[in-house]
């Protein structure tokens, strides 16, 4: 039998091919967009202003900074693209015979599939941030103006230990919300897919496209309704459990994480059951 880590590694490798392509496209598109922006504004003033201060950074320095900004903006689009692609890829891989023939339990394979998408997503984010950081670092090395500007930004912004801890806590809780929400998204797509598949396989109308379409629509409506009811329950429960007017700064974030974790565990368990019992290889 194969280990979970081997299957995870192979799935991660498959998904990373797309990640590398997306990051490369982001870099190329960002360079082109930056050039278009700078040439259409006749290269700009080669200057960056913060408050009352202006720093001469030259055209090249301007290119570096605008490029960093454009790449950062493009992360929104690359994330959305990867999100949609990976949601479809998870379901496609789950039904391919090549993968279903692997000597690993359905539950482990399902988890490896979802987690590899999540880890690829994190990897994509880190890769893009690293490229932007390298771009800015290069800018700091070659442009005196950028170096002075960065110094000005960070001077006088001494943070106390408490402030640093709060910022770190906020970032960690925020990152966890993003990760748990991503998992929840994948699980919801999976549940809808598996319920639809189970219903279509169960019904006697094998080839009837209209019936199949009707099943998908009915299940989608029922699914959205059930999900809104669950979210209402959570919302009511949190109002009962604590008083938002007296909540500490991070209480809502802790609660959101807990709610997401519970939903992930419940839907994850349901998906594993449905996948193991009903989802056949194509």
């Amino acid at each position, binding site marked *: *039998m*194969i280990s979970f880590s*081997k*299957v995870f*590694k*192979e799935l991660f490798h498959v998904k990373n091919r797309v990640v590398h392509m997306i990051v490369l496209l982001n870099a190329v598109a960002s360079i082109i967009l930056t050039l278009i922006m700078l040439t259409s504004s006749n290269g700009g003033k080669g200057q960056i202003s913060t408050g009352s201060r202006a720093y001469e950074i030259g055209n090249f320095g301007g290119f570096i900074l605008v490029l960093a900004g454009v790449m950062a903006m493009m992360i929104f689009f690359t994330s959305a693209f990867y999100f949609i692609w990976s949601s479809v890829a998870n379901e496609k*891989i789950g039904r*391919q*015979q*090549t*993968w*279903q*023939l*692997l*000597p*690993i*339990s*359905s539950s482990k394979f399902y988890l490896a599939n979802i987690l590899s998408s999540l880890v690829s997503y994190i990897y994509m984010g880190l890769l893009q941030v690293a490229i932007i950081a390298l771009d800015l670092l290069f800018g700091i090395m070659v442009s005196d103006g950028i170096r002075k500007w960065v110094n000005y930004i960070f001077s006088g912004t001494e943070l106390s230990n408490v402030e640093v801890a709060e910022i770190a806590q906020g970032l960690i809780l925020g990152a966890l919300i993003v990760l748990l929400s991503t998992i929840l998204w994948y699980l919801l797509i999976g549940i809808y897919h598996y319920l639809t598949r189970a219903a279509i*396989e*169960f*019904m*006697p*109308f*094998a080839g009837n496209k209209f019936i199949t379409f009707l099943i998908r629509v009915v299940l989608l409506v029922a699914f959205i309704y059930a999900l809104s009811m669950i979210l209402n329950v959570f919302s009511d429960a949190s109002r009962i459990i604590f008083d938002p007017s007296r909540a500490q700064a991070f209480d809502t974030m802790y609660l959101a994480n807990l709610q997401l974790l519970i939903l992930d565990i419940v839907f994850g368990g349901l998906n594993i059951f449905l996948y*193991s*019992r*009903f*989802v*056949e*290889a*194509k």
Partner: protein
Amino acid sequence: MTNLLKITGLNYKKNQKYILRDVNLTLDEGKIIALLGENGAGKTSLMRVIAGVAKNYSGQVELAGGKEEAFRKAHLSFTDGLSGFGDTTKIKEVVNFYESLYSDFSENEFDELRKFMKLDLDMRLNQLSRGMREKLIIALTFARKADLYLLDEPFGGIDAMARKKIINSIILWKEDKATILISDHFVNEISTLLDEVVIIKNQTVFAHKSTDEIRENHESIEEYYEGLYEDEGE
């Protein structure tokens, strides 16, 4: 003779229709067995149930003493249509996949089979004809050291000469104790290989006989097989 595969009371339905009903089948190790039946009889479904890629059936399937799907998959090799690979995937990338995930996959064995099938590692899947693709699938199947090989119509697109060559070599590629279950429409061509024949008819195992037994009472296996459907044709 040790039982390798034991199927008891298997029922498999799709869309509320029985595909397989009350199937009971026992296969011994070391045999080459043909799985015969007309189109839609349930041969592929039976192989998919054994391989663990068909779900939601009732009954029991036991292979090499284990009932769990993951255990069965570790002990069998099923002809895979390579659906998990993109069209531009090279053969060597497919081999890398098998090598990294299947501990019983032998790269040396695959290399010998590949050369026999005249396949180039740098060829992409979309460059392969139907017959070449089927040769690749056979090579990948037999490059694994499995207890049970499930070959689902493996020769459909292969030319007659190559088909004969592959059929004659199959016996050399399997371990002595390994069993091959092969479903194919070229009954006459594979008959020389066979130890037993299983006929799927009326959604169940209609007959399970040794080829010696069949040849005692009939001219050939094909004659026996065709005789089972004679009345229906009239």
